[in-house]
């Protein structure tokens, strides 16, 4: 199996439609032991949804804005496993004012929240997990991205946060390279998850499949989850600081094909 005996932390499972849920399921099917994290009001939901996975994983409380939570996470994983083979960062948030066409009027406070939760948290999680990843011989960190090389309708400050995440990932790859840790992002095509449903005007992405040579199913998280699991495995060595587009190929195409 792809992830036989691997110990993997998966953040961001909220509903069965979450990319992280499918990632956790496939990781378990491929032999990994998984622990989830949940946050705030969503924690109770994550705990319930965890019960639907093939093996019911523990759910740890993690607010990535809280240094205490991150410290507790390190301690918990250390006493539980002693090392860590993989980390999946599937965390993002922007206040409503930062999305859906308010780009020019968003306050710094709201932008700061978006950057703290969606960008800085990748580095913070990296710092918290680095010693445990090192003990596993390096391990792999994977974050979820939405192509930030261009401006999109309605995505606004979340797009800026994702552009910063892409840079953050490269710096994290730089600093964790010496200990053998790979750090990569998966730039997913649009998927109708809770995160997407919270964005007013998300339906402007509904015709993604017209630009994608391979087509695109907005409700199927499996292709993205499979690539995340591949990056967690030993079969993607010598890749770090990379962004893999799992979007049906739309990123490579300049106009509508169908």
């Amino acid at each position, binding site marked *: 199996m792809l992830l036989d005996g691997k110990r993997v932390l998966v953040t961001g499972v*909220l*509903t*069965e*439609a979450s990319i992280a849920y499918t990632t956790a399921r496939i990781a378990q099917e491929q032999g990994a032991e998984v622990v989830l994290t949940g946050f705030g*009001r*969503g924690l*109770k*939901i994550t705990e*319930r*949804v965890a019960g639907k996975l093939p093996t019911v994983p523990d759910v740890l409380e993690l607010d990535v804005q809280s240094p205490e939570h991150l410290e507790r996470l390190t301690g918990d994983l250390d006493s539980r496993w002693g090392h860590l083979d993989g980390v999946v960062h599937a965390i993002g948030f922007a206040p409503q004012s930062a999305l859906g066409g308010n780009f020019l009027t968003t306050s710094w406070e709201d932008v700061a929240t978006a950057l703290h939760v969606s960008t800085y948290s990748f580095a913070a999680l990296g710092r918290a997990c680095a010693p445990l990843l090192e003990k596993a011989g390096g391990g792999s960190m994977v974050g979820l991205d939405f192509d930030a090389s261009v401006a999109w309708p309605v995505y606004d400050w979340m797009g800026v946060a994702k552009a910063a995440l892409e840079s953050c990932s490269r710096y994290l790859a730089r600093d964790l390279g010496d200990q053998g840790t790979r750090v990569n992002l998966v730039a997913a095509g649009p998927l109708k998850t*809770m995160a997407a*449903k*919270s964005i007013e005007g998300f339906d402007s992405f509904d015709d993604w499949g017209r630009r994608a040579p391979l087509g695109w199913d907005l409700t199927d998280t499996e292709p993205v989850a499979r690539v995340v699991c591949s990056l967690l495995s030993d079969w993607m060595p010598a890749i770090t600081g990379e962004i893999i587009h799992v979007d049906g190929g739309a990123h490579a195409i300049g106009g509508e094909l169908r």
Partner: protein
Amino acid sequence: MAVYDKVKTLLVEKFGVEEDEISPTATFEDLDLDSLDLVEFALAAEEELGVRISDEEAEQLDTLEDTVKLLEQKGATA
């Protein structure tokens, strides 16, 4: 209306809704429940009533009357 009563109990006990705010024509919005609450409600209803509401269906839930109807169609008995 046994399913209705069960839904009512669920809303009062797990979601902190005031009992006198609940009526068949009340919507989840009237009860100040947002999309995250709806997802949680669907999971709780599955545990309590043994029927499964998908995320898509949860998103469409409007009045309690309609919700009970959907649950009953799916075979919920309280």
